[in-house]
């Protein structure tokens, strides 16, 4: 078991210097999700206009894996169409199953591929992405 597979420098960078951490003051779509088995919590906020994720922010409490994953995710989905954001979420699921996935401009995310070797930690990495799916679901229902 090599810990460096899990804790890559880029992950710790997102953990220690999170991107898009915070909240919107207006009534942007808000999704709260927690991981009841370990106590990790995330509040994700999305601004979706004309089928495009204009902006995203998150707040939460959790381990380096769950929080860095949220930081990377918000970077990746900003400016994407809702369809593309969901596609990224699907790609992330594949990454967690150990498949090779190319995240293009958002290659930071690929650093999380090592989580796959630590089954107990996969739910940490997927928390933010699950919040995204839930958010987009809610957004679609409001249409």
């Amino acid at each position, binding site marked *: *078991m090599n*810990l*460096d597979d*899990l*804790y*890559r*420098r880029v992950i*710790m960078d997102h953990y220690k210097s999170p991107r898009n951490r915070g909240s919107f003051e207006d009534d942007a779509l808000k999704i709260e999700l927690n991981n009841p*088995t*370990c*106590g*990790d*919590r995330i509040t994700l906020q999305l601004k979706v206009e004309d089928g495009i994720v204009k902006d995203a922010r998150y707040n939460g*409490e*959790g*381990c*380096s*894996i769950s929080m860095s994953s949220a930081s990377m995710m918000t970077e990746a989905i900003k400016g994407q169409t809702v369809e593309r954001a969901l596609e990224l979420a699907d790609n992330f699921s594949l990454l967690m199953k150990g498949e090779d996935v190319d995240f293009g401009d958002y290659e930071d995310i690929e650093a999380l591929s090592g989580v796959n070797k*630590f089954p*107990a*930690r996969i739910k*940490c990495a997927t928390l933010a992405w699950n919040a995204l799916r839930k958010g987009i679901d809610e957004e679609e229902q409001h249409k």
Partner: protein
Amino acid sequence: MIGSAIREQFPILNQNVNGHPLVYLDSAATSQKPRQVIEAVKSYYEWDNANVHRGVHTLGSRATDAYEGAREKLAKFINARSTKEIIFTRGTTTALNLVASSYGPSAVGEGDEIVITLMEHHSNLIPWQQLAKKTGATLKYIPLQPDGTITLQDAEETITDKTKIVAIAYVSNVMGVTHPIKELAAIAHRNGAVIVVDGAQSTPHMKVDMQDLDCDFYALSGHKMLAPTGIGALYGKRALLEAMEPIEFGGEMIDDVGLYESTWKELPWKFEGGTPIIAGAVGLGAAVDFLQEIGMDEIHSHEKKLAAYAEQRLSEIDGLTIYGPKSREVGVVTFNLGDVHPHDVATVLDAEGIAIRAGHHCCQPLMRWLEASSTARASFYLYNTEQDVDRLVDALIKTKEYFGYELG
């Protein structure tokens, strides 16, 4: 006969995990099982397996003897007055829920009070929360001191003549706090209330005596005291249990069944609907034998020593916070390592072959009170040694370094 000498009787401990000899420090979650218990369950299935209380055949009698024999052992182990006071359940959760569901509504009404602490495991909190909601009773909390203990004065003030049920853990699964059950029972009784004790973390580690504590109900889990998962027990004073209605109906628990009316078996069987956890009970009986051969006082003092040693060694680590009282009666030590998240701590420790728990420990209200979203917990049992503590400390120092400077 304890610590390293006893280790070899636990086959699971003799293995490498991630290239290191396993150090198991998660016994508060579940204990490991000695060969004697594993063999008892195996032998039951290889020789005696049959359903209980009905077979005329030899195996049926043997299975019944084994099952009821385990009940007798457990009754003696916790010094109940009679086996009628021992109901086998799936574990502590089921036992506490049985009290809340059966005794609860008959004893608690609108305007009454149920008193607990915010340190309770979810299994000794939610059943009472639900009961309060259903009956219109008020749920009250005995305040905690900064080190997680409670004072008898606070208990006196919180428990009033409106209080019908006091529910509290003997030992906290997070803080390692031991509560003064005997004194609390006296306060509860003076106010006309019953006391329900969550004994999941006390029974495995110290001598418990139902008659001396004078508690009304006491719940325990087998799997935390060397027995298999899926078996536990509810102790209840006979008069209380006699007056209670079963909550599960079916086979095993009936006396006479008519088209429109039925009657129940006598205690303890009226609460044991369906085919019981026979092999589990056999395993629990073997676990009780094993614990008694060593002696609960011996086990208790071993753990106290280990906890004190762990406390001392852990406090040498700069930036490590230990939660809970200074001196511990049992081997549960909860901590955080600077700003390294407990999951990350647990993952690095696992890579070193050390198993600890990280998370909220089924105590979300307590975590909020501690202002920690989660914590790391090392818990010890009779098979742990000072070397295990040393391995833990070395690995924690490594963890600190890893998250400080050595990221690849």
